[in-house]
C-alpha cells in the first residue's frame, strides 16, 4: 500500500524533466517560426538527423558516451557538495597520461587496455588533487581553483604536445603526440550489436569506452548507495554541519570524492583519443566538461539519471547539426534551447519537489 504511494512520488519526480523538455521544444518551434521555418520542417530535420535510421540513432549513443562520463564525474562530486568545475582540465590531463601509457609502455593487449584506462583515471585524479588539497587545507573554493586549473591544463597540454611530447615529423604536420601502440587502441563493439540483430553501421563509434562507461556507472551507483563512503558523501552533500556533528570526517570525504570525480573525468577523452584518433592532441573536443555540469544537473546527480540526460544532450547535439544542414535555423539555436531546457527542468523540479514534500508531510501527520 505504502509502496505504491511512494512510487507515485517517484513517477512525479521522473515526469519533471519530460515536462521541461516539452516546454523547451515549444519554445524551439516558436523560435524557428520566427526565423521563418515551419514547425514541420524543423521537427523533420531533427528527427532525420537523430532517429531516422540505425546509423543516426547509434551516433546519438556514441556521442552520449563521453557526455555520460562527464555528467557522472560532476554528479559524484556534487553529491558531496563539491563543485568540480575542473572536469574539463581533468580530462585533458587524464587523456594525456592515458595516451602516454599507450604510447610508451609496450605491454600485451589484455594488460595494456586496463593500464591505459587506469592511467587516464590517475591523470584526472592527479589534476583534481591540487584544487582538492587547496580546498581542504587552505579553504580555497574549488569553483575558483578548478576553473583556473582548466586553463593551466590547456596551456600545459598545448606546450607538451608542441614540445617535449611532439610526434611531429613522425607522421603528421599537425601538433600531436606519437601514435598509440596498437595493443592499447580501443576497438569497436559494432559487430556485437550486429550479432544480436541491431544494424549498427561500421562507421559509428560504439567502442570499448562503452564498456568503460557501463562499468563506471555501476561502480558509481554501488559507491553512492551501497557503500559507507557513499553514505558519507551524500551526508556531507546534504549538510556539512550535521555530518561534522555525527562524526563524519568531512574533509576526508571531500578529498576522496574530488579524486574519484577527477578519476572518472580522466576517461572522458578516451573515445576520441583511443578509438577515433589513435594519438593525443590538445585539439580533442573541448567543452565536454562543462556539458557535464548541465548533464549532472538534469540527471539529478544520480548515475541512472545521468544516463538519460547524457542521451538527451547527445540527441540535442545531433539535432543541432540536423537543423543546420536541413533548415535555415542556425545551429546555435540549440544552445539557447539547451539553456532554456535546463531552466525549465530546474523550475519544474523545484515545484514538484515542494509539492511532494507537502504531500509527505500530510501523510506523516
Amino acid at each position, binding site marked *: 500500500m505504502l509502496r505504491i504511494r*511512494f512510487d507515485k512520488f517517484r513517477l512525479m519526480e521522473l515526469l519533471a524533466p519530460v515536462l521541461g523538455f516539452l516546454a523547451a521544444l515549444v519554445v524551439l518551434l516558436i523560435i524557428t517560426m520566427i526565423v521563418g521555418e515551419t514547425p514541420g520542417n524543423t521537427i523533420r530535420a531533427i528527427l532525420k538527423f537523430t532517429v531516422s535510421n540505425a546509423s543516426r540513432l547509434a551516433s546519438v549513443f556514441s556521442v552520449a558516451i563521453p557526455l555520460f562520463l562527464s555528467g557522472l564525474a560532476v554528479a559524484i562530486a556534487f553529491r558531496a557538495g563539491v563543485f568540480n568545475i575542473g572536469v574539463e582540465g581533468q580530462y585533458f590531463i587524464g587523456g594525456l597520461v592515458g595516451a602516454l601509457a599507450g604510447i610508451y609502455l609496450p605491454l600485451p593487449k589484455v594488460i595494456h587496455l586496463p593500464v591505459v584506462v587506469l592511467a587516464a583515471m590517475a591523470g584526472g585524479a592527479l589534476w583534481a588533487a591540487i584544487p582538492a588539497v587547496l580546498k581542504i587545507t587552505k579553504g580555497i573554493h574549488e569553483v575558483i581553483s578548478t576553473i583556473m586549473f582548466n586553463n593551466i591544463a590547456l596551456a600545459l597540454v598545448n606546450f607538451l604536445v608542441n614540445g617535449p611530447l611532439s610526434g611531429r615529423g613522425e607522421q603528421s604536420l599537425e601538433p600531436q603526440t606519437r601514435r598509440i601502440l596498437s595493443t592499447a587502441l580501443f576497438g569497436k563493439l559494432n559487430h556485437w550489436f550486429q550479432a544480436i540483430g541491431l544494424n549498427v553501421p561500421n562507421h559509428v563509434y560504439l567502442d570499448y569506452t562503452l564498456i568503460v562507461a557501463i562499468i563506471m556507472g555501476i561502480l558509481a551507483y554501488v559507491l553512492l548507495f551501497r557503500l559507507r563512503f557513499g553514505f558519507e558523501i551524500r551526508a556531507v552533500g546534504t*549538510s556539512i554541519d*550535521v555530518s561534522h556533528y555525527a*562524526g563524519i*570526517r568531512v574533509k576526508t570525504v571531500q578529498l576522496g570524492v574530488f579524486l574519484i570525480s577527477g578519476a572518472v573525468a580522466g576517461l572522458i577523452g578516451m573515445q576520441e583519443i583511443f578509438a577515433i584518433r589513435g594519438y593525443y592532441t590538445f585539439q580533442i573536443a573541448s567543452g565536454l566538461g562543462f556539458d557535464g555540469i548541465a548533464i549532472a544537473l538534469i540527471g539529478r546527480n544520480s548515475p541512472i539519471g545521468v544516463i538519460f540526460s547524457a542521451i538527451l544532450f547527445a540527441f540535442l547535439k545531433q539535432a543541432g547539426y540536423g537543423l543546420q544542414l536541413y533548415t535555415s535555423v542556425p545551429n546555435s539555436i540549440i544552445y539557447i534551447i539547451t539553456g532554456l531546457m535546463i531552466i525549465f527542468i530546474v523550475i519544474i523540479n523545484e515545484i514538484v519537489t515542494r509539492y511532494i514534500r507537502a504531500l*509527505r508531510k500530510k501523510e506523516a501527520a
Partner: protein
Amino acid sequence: MSDTLLAMEGITKVFPGVLANDEVSFDLQPGEVHALVGENGAGKTTLMKILYGLQKPDSGTIYLRGQATSIRNPRDAIAQGIGMVHQHFMLVPPFSILENIVLGEETHTAGILRMEEPTEKIERIMRENGLPVDLSVTVAELPVGLQQRVEILKILYRGAEILVFDEPTAVLTPGEVDDLFETFRMMKDQGKGIVFITHKLDEVLAVADRITVIRRGKVIETLPRKGATKAKIAELMVGKPVLLEVKKETVEAGATILEVRNLRQTGERGTAVLAGVGLSVKAGEIYGIAGVEGNGQTELVKAVTEPVKLDEGDVLLQGQSILSWDVRTRRDAGIAHIPEDRQRFGLLLPFSLADNLTLGRHHRPPFVKGSQWIDSAKIRESARKTIAAFDIRTPSETTPAHALSGGNQQKAIVAREMSFEPILLVASQPTRGVDIGAQEFIYSQLLEARQNGKAVLLVSADLDEILSLADRIGVMFKGHIIKELDRAEATREKIGLYMTGGEQDAAH
C-alpha cells in the same frame, strides 16, 4: 464590546495538508494581558502572523476597536497600532539605540536628521513604561535582555496599542523577567493590550489576565486567571493529564566520567569566552549548567564534543585526555550529544528516518559488513526498534526525516543519541522549542540515562529544568563557573543572582 481593542473572529487558515487555524476567535481588551498558550504547531504563531499581516487568512474577520479591517502587511499592522516583539530581534548592531528606534521613522528637515524631538519622545516612553536605557550606546554592546527592551521601545515609538510578545522570556534572566512583567503592568495601566505567547505556565499565571489555549488549530478554552492552575492549562494544551512534577529516584553516583580542567579560550573578538572552566561529572549524575546564554556554555559543549583550539586546559573522559580526538573518536568512545541548534545539526532531512536514527554509528557494525558495505536491513531493523521504544510517530522507518512533525524530529534526535548507549550524554538546551508532551518524554529519558549509570552534562537556560533534573548545578558567568551548588542548597533566587554575576549580593 465597543471598547474591545481587538477581536479576531472565525479565523481559518489552511496550509497544504495542515489546518493551522480552524475557526479561531480571539479578543483583547484594553489594559489586559492575554496569554496565548499551546504546543508547538498548535497555531499560535500562524494566528499572530495573520494579525501582523504576514499571512492571509482563508476566512474570518479582524476587528480593531469595533471596526472590521484588513491587514495586508506588517506596515499596515504598525499603522493600525499593532506591534510585535519577535523571538529573533530585528536590530542593526552598529547603530546606537536611538538610531535603531527611529530607523524607518526618522524626523528630518530637508534631509537633515533631527534627533531632539525623537529623543524627548523616547525618554517619555521610557519613563512611562519602566524601560530605561542609555540611548547613545550601540546595540552591539547590549546584552540580550536590553536588546529586547530596544525592540519594545521601537514598537511603542511607533504608537502601538496592541503589543504581541512571542516567547519573550526565553532569552531573559529571572530578574529581567520580573522587569518585563513590571513593564507589562505599566503598559496595562495606559490601556494598552498585550498578547503574551509562552510555553512557561508559571509566567502565564504570574502575569496574564486571561488565558486562551489553542490545540491543533482550535481554541480549546479561554479562561480567566482566577481558578486557573498549571495542571489545568497543561491538560488543555496536551489534551490529556500531564505529569508536571519530575519524579527523581535516588541514584548513587559512581566513578568520574567527564573531567574538564581549567579551560581557557579566546574568542573571535579577542576576549576570553572560556576563562578557566572546571567541572566533573560522575556516572549516574546529572550536572546542570545554568546561566544566561552567551556566557561560554556553547564553547564548553564544543570543547567536550569536538576538537577545538584552546589556550589552556584539558578535557578527560574516564581519566584519558580527549582533546586531540576528533568527533568520530569521541563518539566511538561513548560521548552522545543532543545539539543545541537541532535545526542545523540534528538531522539529514532528505534522508530516511532509519538512516537518521543510525547516523553517527553508521560506520560501525552491525550497520556495515566488511567495513564498507551498508547493511540496510540491519539499519531498518534497528530503526524500527528505536521508533517503537521511543514512540516516534511516523508512517514507516523509510519516511524521509523532513516529513516528520517538529516534535517527532526532536524525539528522533534524542532517541538516536540515547540508543547509542553512551557513557556520557551532553544535552544542550534539550527542551528548547519543545512542547509539553515532548518535554515530559525528554525529561524521563534524561533521568533514565542517569539511573542507568550514565553521566549527563545538561546545559539549559531554563532554570526550572535545571532545578528539576540536576544533581549538581554549575552557574556559568563570563566564561567560568562562578558558583557550584548542590541541588539541595540551590534555589531559583540564588541561581538567578549568580547568573548575573552577583556573587557579592548573594553572599549575604
